[in-house]
């Protein structure tokens, strides 16, 4: 398998990473090398093997639906690039 330049641009768009033409070409070379390493995995027959998502096969813990954290909004927003009236500011998305 080999990726195309168009695919690299597409996944960069999906990943929300701006990529220049020169970067896309360089990335293509590296990704194709990495995928040829990954392809070695395809040689093994894994039919009937249950996928392993996690090291410990444990159910998610549940807890009582009660407030157990304090409100630390001000402290968390102190490191935000732009806030106003307790809200995070981003460019307008709805006209």
């Amino acid at each position, binding site marked *: 398998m080999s*990726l195309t330049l168009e*695919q*690299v641009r597409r*996944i*960069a*768009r*999906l*990943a*929300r*990473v*701006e*990529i220049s033409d020169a970067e896309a070409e360089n*990335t293509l070379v*590296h*990704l194709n*090398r*990495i*995928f040829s*390493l*990954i*392809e*070695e*995995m*395809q040689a*093994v027959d*894994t039919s009937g*093997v*249950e*996928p*392993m*998502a*996690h*090291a*410990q096969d*444990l159910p*998610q*813990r549940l*807890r009582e639906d009660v407030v157990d954290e304090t409100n*630390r909004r001000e*402290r*968390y927003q*102190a*490191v*935000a*690039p*732009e806030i106003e009236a307790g809200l*995070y500011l*981003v*460019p*307008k*998305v709805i006209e």
Partner: protein
Amino acid sequence: MIDKTLRQLSRALADREISSVELARLFLDRIERLDPQINAYITIDREKTLAQARAADARLAAGKAGPLTGIPLAQKDIFCAEGWRTTCGSKMLGNFVSPYDATVIERFNAAGAVILGKTNMDEFAMGSSTETSYFGVTRNPWDMERVPGGSSGGSAAAVAARLAPAATGTDTGGSIRQPSALCNLTGIKPTYGVVSRYGMIAYASSLDQGGPMARSAEDCALLLDVMAGFDARDSTSLDRPSEDYARALENPLAGLRIGLPKEFFGEGCDSGVMRRVEEAIAEYRRLGAKTVEVALPNMKLAVPAYYVIAPAEASSNLARYDGARYGHRAPAYDDLADMYAKTRAQGFGDEVKRRVLIGTYVLSHGYYDAYYLQAQRVRRRIAEDFAEAFRQCDVIMGPTSPTTAFRIGEKASDPVRMYLSDIYTIAVNLAGLPAMTIPAGFVDGLPVGLQLIGDYFAEARLLNVAHRYQQTTDWHREMPVIG
């Protein structure tokens, strides 16, 4: 004082031979003098460190000290520490002063340990050499032209150069073990779920695990006692009774069954490294252990499976860096989508971008089954191989890294070659097992590590096996000559 173990420092503090403030100053002065050439630390904050040391001295004076009270420790810059800049080696978090403590930090603070500084690392822990850090490469104190390994390379270099008595690291594919091996340290990656990941900046959540990097197994046990424990704030933290990790240190090794996987002793390992590993195993035989050959037939698939699973999880975890709530935001942009794309293009380095793109691709429509699910099936095969091996042995041994420390720049332009530095460590993370590395000698003046892999929750046994070796060898006491 700079060459004392944690236990010796603890005694010196208890006996008032030295105060915590004096000890912190000693290390801070040494960092100021020597770190410009090593670059082990990203952030030092004398005032914060000394304030913590003063509090520790008060606690010592009040007779309320624990074994780590007053001891300065280097923290990998992946652990959020309140009021400390916490960068994860990235420009993205270059301005991020953490508003909260990671559980690991909280536990060390409660024990009275002192934060000496935040150590350098590969960006978002993605690397095996510390060369992907936005804050510059860390140099290996054993040879300044070489890398310290990674991703916890700053922690490894700091402890090796005696710029800290011990440090923390995190290990997703070998990031505690490989730098420890390359810098002549003892390091342990616990069973997945033993150390809380809360406030430990996420790379690949099903693999990431924090652990200590120190100069002996005994010191690692002391640190793990503090780091380990259930944490309701980490959804994968294991709710188990607490352990005394030093309880079995002195147990004799007679009858210990050491499994030697043939996949660890074939091609791909430097012959000098292999000789040191074989000598270490011979020493274990003298200590009464027996060796048995075991097989890990899917080991060679560990690196390929890892480079699907880890980037997939990373692409999801790193979606949070969008310039909206914290961290870097591009100074100029057109609209929201453009703000995200420019922020991420500027904030992430090349290796991080590569892994985010790989992860995005393998999770995208039409490729999910072929890559992600296949990798997870291979992952189970690997875990089953280990389970089978542990029916025949108590501990698996082999090299930690296929080579000694490589030259700065040697592999930086070839990601695949860099990825193969972790061929012996990655399978352990996929299975979620505990593993450690201990110093086993030198090749041309560069340290070699012996890897010890245990069954789930066998940390105390691993530390015992490591400690007994360290009672009859001196490799772990060797220190590099610097400045």
